């Protein structure tokens, strides 16, 4: 099939970007979206032009490195699907596709469709862990955890850190990302000990990184490739409020 692409090109964080038109022929329905971009880049190389830079790595939906806005939606039209797992059978011959980077003040563009998501790492660095150093751990079965608890914790822990939640949020809020980590750790007995300190430092850092506030529109859950529940945001708020009240 033949497609008309409108792709965001931007040289670096400070330069002004623009949408550029491309045409691409010979796309087959079995191709993944990123393979379609590979094909386009191959043709740009033949034209001796600079290729379109985009982030990607595992191409099986788990590393969280890929992610672009496709026709105005994070990771494109399918539910619970990363950009790399989106296939061209979701499009038809003659379609025009808009491709833009995930946009947020906290996610500056590096080049073209590549963005800088270090702000996510900084939030984890601020406190998104359990302070268990190597070699200190007690026998694993000495802490029984109910099946339901561990499954709920896993649901939140499944976050791949792609940033689709931020990209699709009208406020560019990172509440789902932070909420998922808070929930993952706060549900587990091992994580409860530092829960108050963790939520306060992480929420602080989230603010500092320049993310917006959560308006509970729930758009993030709809676009999250792992389908992480917005209730993890409420859980974060619960932990935060509790920490404020109980703080010495």
């Amino acid at each position, binding site marked *: 099939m033949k497609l008309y692409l409108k792709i965001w090109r931007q040289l670096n964080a400070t330069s002004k970007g623009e949408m550029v038109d491309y045409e691409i022929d010979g796309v087959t329905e079995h191709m993944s979206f990123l393979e379609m971009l590979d094909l386009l880049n191959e043709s740009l190389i033949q034209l001796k032009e600079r290729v379109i830079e985009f982030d990607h790595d595992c191409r099986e939906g788990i590393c969280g490195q890929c992610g672009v806005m496709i026709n105005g939606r*994070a990771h494109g039209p399918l539910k619970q699907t990363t950009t790399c797992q989106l296939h061209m059978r979701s499009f038809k011959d003659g379609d025009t596709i808009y491709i833009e980077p995930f946009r947020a003040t906290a996610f500056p563009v590096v080049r073209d469709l590549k963005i800088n998501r270090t702000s996510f790492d900084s939030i984890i660095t601020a406190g998104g862990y359990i302070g268990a150093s190597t070699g200190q751990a007690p026998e694993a079965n000495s802490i029984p955890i109910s099946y339901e608890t561990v499954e709920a914790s896993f649901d939140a822990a499944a976050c791949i850190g792609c940033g689709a939640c931020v990209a699709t949020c009208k406020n560019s809020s990172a509440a789902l990302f932070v909420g998922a980590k808070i929930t993952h750790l706060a549900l587990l007995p091992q994580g409860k000990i530092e829960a108050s300190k963790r939520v306060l430092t992480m929420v602080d850092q989230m603010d500092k990184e320049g993310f917006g506030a959560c308006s509970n529109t729930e758009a993030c859950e709809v676009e999250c490739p792992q389908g992480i529940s917005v*209730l993890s945001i409420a859980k974060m708020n619960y932990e935060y409020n509790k920490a404020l009240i109980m703080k010495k």
Partner: protein
Amino acid sequence: MKSTTLKNKIIIAGTGLFLCFFLVIHLLGNLQLFLPEDQAREQFNWYSKLLSGNVFIKIISWVLYLSLISHALYAIIVTIKNNTASKQNYHYDKRNFASAWNSRNMGILGTILLLFLIIHFKDFWYVYKFTNLPIDAAGNKDLYEVVVQSYSQLWYVIIYEISFVALGFHLLHGFFSASRTLGLYHPKYVKAIKIFGWGYTLIITGGFMAIPLYIYLK
């Protein structure tokens, strides 16, 4: 603590819920307008006097004013922060697909409500407090007459009805959003709150919408 956004949200949620509570009281009082005319006049005017005279009520009303102001003020602060966080727009934007219209436009709905409140305060609160109104049989200021006069004008009823629709949408999202901000995360109660929120919104909005129509059509 340096963090502000989440705290601001808590203020918005807390004041919002207080305003929700106030709406119930307000509606209950206003239901007196559905009584037969003579009875309604006497009851309603007595009730209005009660509200303006009692020290306890006075304190509550100050809390109410403060809530209104801070609800709006903090909403503006958070909105500014949100706009800074999402400066760049998408050239092609279909994000609306993923969320409800009212949840994205609480600011606009809130602004409509603010404008409404200015009119509402001017026409009733100000008139009652600072102008000389006729006295009814029981010797109370005849606010009932003001109400009846106001709602006999079609354009005035229309403004009210539109504002109440905005109120409805604002409440529908606001009530449930506040519960989330305050940390209600258990799936079972979340569902209960959602159902309660719908019920609450329908009753409050329906009740307020019925009053001007009832009086206009009478």
